[in-house]
């Protein structure tokens, strides 16, 4: 974990609800795909946690959905403004966990950390396939970015207006060696119920601090209580206890 000042390099809308934000600064604490950062926004007491989508030597990219007052305020900030950011939070994905031909299964903005993971997997000579789930055609984003990596990229929409009709589980098949999933909890659970493959799931919870101090995001697992921010956000599917 590091704390630092980052400069907004780019902050643009991708769809009616999703924006991309590139922040420049010391990215040395971001060491694995699936880790997240915690942004401080003026006028709000708590920080806002976001998964890192991608990073280079001097900047990182976030994809965020404008869902409340905090993210609306964030979307109005112009390039050149600086933000106080905690970086290198959480455990991140294990790129060996899903075998040689893993599925990357995303619900909406859950695709963000899976993009960086796809690049890491390709570097290791693995052959990932992306399944990107959305509600409807107008919400589809980042499909070309996944495809541009040269990996098979399937889009599903719940209303059938684009790609495969239905949920991401409809696109899952048995040719794969494992999966990595990020999206709404109901989707993560459905993915696990659909396939017995080894898998890692990235969870989202309301957090206080984002670095393990407040115990605000603890979930009960087969390994005992784990902090989603510090011991997660990525959990082995085998450790998850689903609520009744």
């Amino acid at each position: 974990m590091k704390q630092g000042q980052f400069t907004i390099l780019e902050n643009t809308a991708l769809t009616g609800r999703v924006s991309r934000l590139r922040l420049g600064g010391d990215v040395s604490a971001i060491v694995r795909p699936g880790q997240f950062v915690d942004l401080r926004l003026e006028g709000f007491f708590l920080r806002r946690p976001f998964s890192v989508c991608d990073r280079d030597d001097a900047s990182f990219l976030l994809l965020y959905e404008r869902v409340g007052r905090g993210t609306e305020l964030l979307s109005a900030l112009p390039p050149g403004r600086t933000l106080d950011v905690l970086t290198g939070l959480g455990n991140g994905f294990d790129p060996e966990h899903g075998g040689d031909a893993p599925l990357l299964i995303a619900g909406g903005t859950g695709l963000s950390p899976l993009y960086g993971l796809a690049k890491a997997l390709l570097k290791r000579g693995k052959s990932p396939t992306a399944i990107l789930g959305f509600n409807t055609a107008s919400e589809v984003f980042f499909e070309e970015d996944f495809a541009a990596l040269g990996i098979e990229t399937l889009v599903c929409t719940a209303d059938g207006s684009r790609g495969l009709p239905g949920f991401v589980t409809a696109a899952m098949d048995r040719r794969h060696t494992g999966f990595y999933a990020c999206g709404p909890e109901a989707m993560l659970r459905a993915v696990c119920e659909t396939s017995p493959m080894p898998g890692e799931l990235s969870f989202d919870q309301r957090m206080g601090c984002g670095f393990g101090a407040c115990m605000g995001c603890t979930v009960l697992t087969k390994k005992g209580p784990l902090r989603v921010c510090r011991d997660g956000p990525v959990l082995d599917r085998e450790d998850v206890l689903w609520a009744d």
Partner: protein
Amino acid sequence: MGRLSVSLCGIGLDNPVIPASGTFGYGYEFAELYDINCLGTFSFKGTTLHSRPGNPLPRIAETASGMLNAVGLQNPGVDRVISEELPKLAECFHKPVIANVSGFSVEEYAEVCRRFDAQPQVGWLEVNVSCPNVHDGGMSFGTEPKAAAEVTRAVRAVTSKPVIMKLSPNVTDIVAVAKACEDAGADALSLINTLMGMRIDLRTRRPVLANRTGGLSGPAVFPVALRMVWQVSQAVRIPVIGLGGIQSAEDVIEMMLAGASAVQVGAANLVNPCTCRDIIRALPGTMDRLQINTLQEIIGGSHGQ
């Protein structure tokens, strides 16, 4: 004795800045960012006799200038704190630490304190009779002077370490509770714990927190805490640790002028993990500006005004 040093129940502190229980874990997350030995001391996560998983999620809600939490005393239980957490803590913190203790019966408070009494790392016992987020325990002992006194007496009987009673602001007369604790043998008081509050989600029309209510902390509660420290410190002879919304060197000085002998910093640690270090660094310059020679001399400086 440095300009910043104060004394807490006969134990010297390099400075009065103490991270509050529940906002600092067992210290190691923060030790990644700075050398936590710069702190006066810190109060580690509240400990009960048996392990507790804590409350269901969500446990956290944001508020104007603050936050609500309903963590519910999640902790591994006193024996595992002693066998696992204290040895790890010893690697990154080399000063006496405050053990924060909670319970659901007078006997439980006493038993946890008895076990911590044997730990040389523990300098003080801070007894939390003010947690608003658990049922049939915690705050119910801190809202009645008689019950608070009973816990104080039971704890006092099993330890030779200084006993700090941590008080709830969710009472009509905090001075009465404070005096009852003093009369029952408390060596110090810390106040305030969080103020009970709640938020409702407009779309679902349900409370945001799974526990429905939670404890309000952050700068929103600072004036309430300050007023209570001012009242209590003039009514008792034992030292008072002031906490509630402190986030700057100026806040520390204001709280000490109100009568605090030391201060705790809580919610601010969760937003800026370097807050305590930054406050300690800022104190000498802030004191110069305000023509304060030593912090010790300003304790209660507003009394009688």
